[in-house]
């Protein structure tokens, strides 16, 4: 009896929390189909019809395709850079013993404590000096620079579990070092690579402050920046804004729906090891 009561109570608490978590998304969703006047008279009720007008308008006015493309450029550049360079470095640092290798690894790890906010002002200047300010590709490169430390840390730990005999036998067969790494070792690092891709995807796709500082031209804006600009521009037209919010969240929700299990696993592992 007591057991039943406690399970009812816990289910009740979960249900209340579920309402709290769904509430803003539900409200944004139902109102994104309404006309401005319908929204004013009945915010709480379901839309009278599923008109996609707001979506079409938001899609065009916010130039969603262009901003989505910019976001993809930033994300892909950043992730490819991080995965490529960190896997190489993490592997080698893990395989090499000696003071130099150890010191370099410690440098990478220690830098994980530096908050982005501490370097943002000088980093922006650096990006400007290098001609990386103003382009999504440049932003991706800067992000790769900021992301390598954590990825190296994760690769470093993972490589310890990959038998050394593999390197040695490949070497005996006359395989060059780079080929050994890319043909034999890298495929074995896929699980941790996936974790790293997920963590960085969430960061790069949704990042706000660094893109604000580096992307000065609105034509180069990522989705989040475009939405932010859109919000300022059409601040009274909620139905339009809500449609743009929903629209811009769709890609990441689809990715989540497909890879949910791996994402959850990756995030837990990344946090526990990082």
């Amino acid at each position: 009896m007591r057991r039943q009561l406690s399970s009812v109570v816990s289910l009740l608490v979960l249900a209340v929390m579920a309402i709290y978590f769904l509430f803003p998304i539900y409200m944004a969703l139902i109102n994104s189909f309404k006309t401005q006047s319908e929204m004013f008279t009945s915010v709480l009720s379901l839309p009278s019809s599923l008109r996609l007008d707001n979506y079409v308008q938001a899609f065009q006015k916010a130039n969603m395709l262009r901003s989505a493309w910019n976001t993809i450029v930033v994300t892909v550049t950043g992730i490819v850079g991080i995965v490529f360079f960190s896997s190489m470095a993490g592997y080698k640092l893990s395989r090499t013993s000696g003071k130099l290798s150890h010191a370099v690894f410690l440098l990478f790890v220690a830098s994980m404590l530096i908050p982005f906010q501490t370097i943002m002002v000088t980093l922006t200047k650096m990006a400007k000096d290098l001609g990386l300010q103003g382009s999504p590709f440049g932003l991706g490169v800067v992000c790769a620079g900021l992301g390598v430390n954590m990825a190296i840390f994760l690769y470093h730990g993972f490589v310890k579990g990959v038998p050394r005999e593999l390197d040695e036998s490949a070497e005996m067969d006359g395989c060059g070092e780079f080929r050994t790494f890319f043909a034999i070792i890298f495929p074995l690092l896929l699980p941790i690579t996936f974790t790293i891709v997920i963590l960085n995807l969430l960061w790069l796709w949704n990042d706000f402050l660094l893109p604000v500082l580096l992307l000065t031209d609105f034509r180069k804006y990522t989705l989040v920046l475009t939405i932010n600009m859109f919000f300022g521009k059409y601040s009274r037209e909620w139905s339009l804004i809500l449609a743009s919010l929903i629209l811009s969240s769709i890609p990441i929700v689809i990715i989540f729906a497909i890879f949910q299990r791996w994402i959850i696993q990756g995030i837990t592992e990344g946090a526990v090891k990082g």
Partner: protein
Amino acid sequence: MLNRSRKALLSLILFVAPAFALYVIFLVIPMIQGSYFSFTNWDGLNKSYSFVGIHNFVEAIRDDANFRTAILFTAKYVIVAVVLQNAIALLLALLIESQRKAKGLFRTLFFMPNMLSIIISTFMWVFVFSKVMPALSKFAALKFLGISWLGDPDVSFWTIMLVSVWGGVGTLMLIYMSAIQGIPQHLKEAAIIDGATPIHMFRYITMPLIAHALTICTFLTLNSSFKVYDLIFALTGGGPARATQVITMNILEEAYQRNYRYGYASAKAIILFLIILVITMIQVSVMKKREVEA
């Protein structure tokens, strides 16, 4: 022999150099430059500037009322956010783990906000606070929802917290869930046989055995709450009248909006770094000592 170690060094350099170069250019140099500029009065544009010693630091700590308000507000935010986020995440993890059905559904639901951009999801909340709450407050029973969610500083702190918990608990909950799943079954059974109540179970079995997760999650929340920006930018913009301004916002304002005082902004950024460093170091070393092995 020499040849061999030289070859090893060369291959170490070849593999590590690209990542190291990126790291030096975008992390190390900005950090060193930032520390250097924090002792100058550079404005970010002018070629000439002069050394002012620790003047920037003294000014930030002693004379800058806005900065002090920002630090105090951030501190208040950090304390409440760390406690609330962890408490609620742990509660959710325990409740979900105690369910037999619909575990995955609840997990997905509470984790979902973490996938969305903070800016985008916070705009949804802005809609809720500015349009939905007033509509709800027309019902007599929900009259209390008619408060000024974003305009009154006393209220808006809790409004910020409401959104902060909403967006922050997902990852923490996953970490707690995996820690709870890691508790050996025989310990739970032994405790039940010994007649432990659920409260005893939580206090003497669950809590000690998930202490490592508690350390990690506290570290994560401390770190992220000291650096909070997006959420407050999108929700209140730091207002009304800087009442909800956080440190990051204050630094940005100093560097880009007010007087372009790069040197001064750098000093504030270094102060933020030191605060986070010292507090997380203390937190990790204190909490690590309390962890036990299962």
